[in-house]
């Protein structure tokens, strides 16, 4: 018997892997010391655990543990990286470059910097969701100090050309920040070869706990930042505040498991995703959003034409999925990411993001396929647009009585 609703929203958050929770629990019970307490064994014990976790995070991305700074999550990491670098290098220039399909944590931070007098270029992506390198090169200016792009898009799962962008930035001495919240455990990340200066990580997208993340800060060549949270001088002054040991231990274990298991896991997930796509492709008028080759295997984002998104979500309430990104789906605005791909609002409204993960089963995928067949059929029976299209009306020529 299937447990409903079926969770297909692994890009919004993941459950904590039971092996991770097991590692965390001692730090919620007996190992409660403050890692900053230098005068007794309670503190030394937790400090050692924090450093061990730091090594595990570093190992997943082939970095030096000294390059890893703990934060409360990827949103804070993005704020620290972008504001911290922009403020530190403001004397060199005031121009930043980012992409229209970035997460709000990057876009809102850039908006804030604009109010502080920085100039930000928000680049378009192609209809495949990818940043074109020529577009990128054309946007560079002599006063460009910082480029921020995401590794993997949270809504459509496409993988941006990080290696190529990094080469260009390094050649021009521009700081390059990458939001990798959706990338860890999904794509191989080698910071010894990638020319990335700052990289944001989150634990809760990779089977670790919420409330913990990290920022990679490159040491060679050294990147400087203005701290955004001041106090006791934790994290070598980059980020003050008592370290949440249990969460840090959880992130370390989650990243260790990702390193060991991602190869096999991604193949299994790819098979499930392909099964889902094959199962839905005999429904008429469905469109995949975003490039299907340069994409993580976990993500399938589909627009079902002529059905409305919210009623679709209601119809498939046995599936826990997102329309638009988790952070913005409380509003009725169509996804700005899909708009950036040039999708019409109607198709953006009727898009569903399926994200598959460690605990997804074939049985769950098959259930989802059958449910979608039934419900799309029913909603189209209800849809005047579908009826018009079946009658041969070109909806583009209709004069809508907009209100």
């Amino acid at each position: 018997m299937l447990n409903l609703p079926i969770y297909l929203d692994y890009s919004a958050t993941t459950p904590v892997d039971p092996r991770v929770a097991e590692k965390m629990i001692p730090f919620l019970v007996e190992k409660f010391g403050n890692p900053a307490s230098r005068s007794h064994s309670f503190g030394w014990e937790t400090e050692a655990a924090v450093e061990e976790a730091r090594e595990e995070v570093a190992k997943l991305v082939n970095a030096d543990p000294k390059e890893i700074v703990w934060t409360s999550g990827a949103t804070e990491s993005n704020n620290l990286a972008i504001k911290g670098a922009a403020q530190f290098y403001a004397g060199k220039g005031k121009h930043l470059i980012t992409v229209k399909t970035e997460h709000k944590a990057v876009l809102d931070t850039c908006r804030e910097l604009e109010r502080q007098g920085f100039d930000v270029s928000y680049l378009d992506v192609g209809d495949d969701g990818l940043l074109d390198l020529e577009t990128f090169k054309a946007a560079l200016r002599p006063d460009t100090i910082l480029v921020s792009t995401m590794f993997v898009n949270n809504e459509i799962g496409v993988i941006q050309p990080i290696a190529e962008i990094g080469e260009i930035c390094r050649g021009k001495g521009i700081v390059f920040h990458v939001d990798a919240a959706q990338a860890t455990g999904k794509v191989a990340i080698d910071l010894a070869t990638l020319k990335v200066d700052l990289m944001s990580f989150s634990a809760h997208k990779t089977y670790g706990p919420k409330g913990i993340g990290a920022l990679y800060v490159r040491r060679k060549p050294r990147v400087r930042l203005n701290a955004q949270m001041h106090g006791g001088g934790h994290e070598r002054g980059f980020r003050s505040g008592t370290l949440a040991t249990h969460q840090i231990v959880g992130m370390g274990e989650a990243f260790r498991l990702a390193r060991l298991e991602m190869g096999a896991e991604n193949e299994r997930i790819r098979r499930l995703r392909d099964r889902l796509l094959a199962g839905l492709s005999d429904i008429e008028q469905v469109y995949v959003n975003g490039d299907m080759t340069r994409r993580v295997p976990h993500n399938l984002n589909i627009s079902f034409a002529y059905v409305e998104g919210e009623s679709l979500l209601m119809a498939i309430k046995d599936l826990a999925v997102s329309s638009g990104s988790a952070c913005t789906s409380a509003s009725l605005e169509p996804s700005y990411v899909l708009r950036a791909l040039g999708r019409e609002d109607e198709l953006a409204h009727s898009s569903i993001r399926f994200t598959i993960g460690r605990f997804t089963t074939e049985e769950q995928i098959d259930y989802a396929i059958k449910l979608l067949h039934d419900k799309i059929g029913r909603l189209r029976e209800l849809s005047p647009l579908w009826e018009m299209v079946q009658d041969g009306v070109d909806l583009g020529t209709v004069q809508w009585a907009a209100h």
Partner: protein
Amino acid sequence: MFAPVYFDHNATTPIDPAVVDAMLPYLSAHFGNASSRHEYGRAARRAIDEARGRVAAALGAHASEVVFTSGGSEANNLLLKGAAARSRPGLLAVSAIEHPCVLKPAEQLAGTGWTLRTLPVDADGRVDVARFEAVLAQRPKIVSVMWANNETGVQQDIEALAAMAARAGACFHTDAVQAVGKLPVDFRRLNTAGVQAMTVSAHKIGGPKGAGALLLDKRLDVAPLIAGGGHERGLRSGTENVAAIVGFGVACELAAARREEHARTTLALRRRLEDGLRGLGATLFGQRAERLPNTAFFAFPGIDGETLVGQLDRAGYAVASGAACSSSNPEPSHVLRAMGVAPDLARGALRVSLGGGNTAADVDGFLDSLRVTLARLHGLTAMAR
């Protein structure tokens, strides 16, 4: 193996088992992102709403006044930088004995056009009211004074200071991280007196690390420190740390319910401890001031604090030298310096902060170990001479 006795509750506290029990389901079955609209997300949202209600009720605030953060340091940074960002630069006043997570942001602001006034304290660590009034006469825009000091446990008359600040038209903030669970806390009453914002933290009151809050009078305009997504009414973006927030809610409730009992037992233990310390020739700091019932801060003339805490740790007693966050720093405590304590004496300072699990036998055993250790150290000192 014997378990060491934990005497460092002002640095962090053991998590109450009831808190852990409340948190664990949010790591497993109820793991949703509170921004998701499906049932997993709604369950997380309900849990956060409920925790917000618990925190508010325990602290005498309205749920809408609670802004969750990653902890006390973030809440202090948020208030100081956030209030400053929404105002023209002017005068900013903080007490000399604030935690670094107030002092450092204040120093940062001093680099961006703000003028920083540091409020002096008397020999017992109380804010000097005459000097405070003199600063208020210069019309500061933001004033931050901690309620109870983490090192000395000395309390300030927060309602009186807030009322003075309010009359001078200043935004008054207090860091109440050490006060919650030890003193009666009623944000409504404080707010009426003139406190517009107050910082609290979970891990100092039997909750988990990684959660705290800023209680905020909604009339106060504050810019977010962390942008992106608009969580917490736009004041603090980032996916909510559901499990820690749930734990924080339960911890607040328990702390409020147990406060009187906790104050009574820790005060009795502290008196027992301090009687013994006086007998051993200790200098006790902040003695004439109102202090938190659980905190004793003291030094032995001529004895190095770092050495002493090391010996005590080996004897099975976990105490602090200086403040937890800066104890890697060999400089004498800035709090004692502000109180006019001689650097040589200040370098020997030790803090015992008691908690619910401590017993009279723990205190007696500690005094015995201290007596033995001191005798040995005095012997070494004598030989060195």
